[in-house]
């Protein structure tokens, strides 16, 4: 366990020293703004599994999904031995068949 686990309250108390009249909700919004900005640089690596569906080319990475993906690093496919095998990235995305769904 970490020596200190920061909560929003600790950040709030620090901000009060500099700006005494700010509200908790205002600081909460600023913390979330900071987290979005830090997410562009800070590397929080995670893994997620999804179903491989017949005749589906696209798998959504929208911000409204259960997971928020900033950058895909690797994709792996389940093989017949139950192992996830890393697959190569197609850099030119040059497919003959166009899918719109």
């Amino acid at each position, binding site marked *: 366990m970490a020596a200190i686990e920061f909560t929003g309250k600790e950040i709030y108390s620090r901000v009060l020293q500099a700006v005494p009249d700010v509200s908790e909700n205002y600081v909460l919004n600023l913390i979330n703004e900071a987290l979005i900005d830090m997410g562009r640089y800070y590397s929080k690596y995670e893994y997620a599994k999804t179903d491989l569906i017949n005749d589906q080319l696209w798998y959504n990475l*929208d911000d409204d999904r259960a997971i928020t993906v900033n950058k895909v690093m690797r994709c792996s496919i389940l093989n017949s031995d139950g192992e996830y095998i890393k697959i190569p990235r197609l850099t030119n995305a040059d497919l003959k068949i166009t899918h719109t769904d």
Partner: protein
Amino acid sequence: MANISSTYKNPEKTFVWFIEGDKVGIATTEGDGSTSNTGKGELKAVVLGSGNQIQNGLLISYIAEPDKLTSITGTIDIDNNLQPALIDYVKAKALMDAAARTDNPNIAQIRMASAQQCMLNYKEAVRRFGMKKNDKTGGTRAVVPADMR
């Protein structure tokens, strides 16, 4: 949807992935899509039979966004070594807003100077050194100086 088992022996040779906008595309040369452009050997969407799927057949490794803080008493979803940077960011923005609100130009100037210092600290911590400070396993362990002889 009916779940089926994976029959792919070597997906590294027959599958590819790519990004288009906010979607990841998964295409394969395996299976026969029964048209001249989706036969075996052509890149196309996976062919598993109508209504079929492989449960958890795709694993994505990704860089995630930190979780949203929903309550002021909640724990913040970033590594501890980046907490000072977070405090700097919040203080900088709060001081900037406070400087804009005040009628006293002297106080506004002092707050803006403090805000700029906090923002500078934040940028240095996250944008310039964030990855190096946060990298717990990788990164340079020692620098070997060039032999100048």
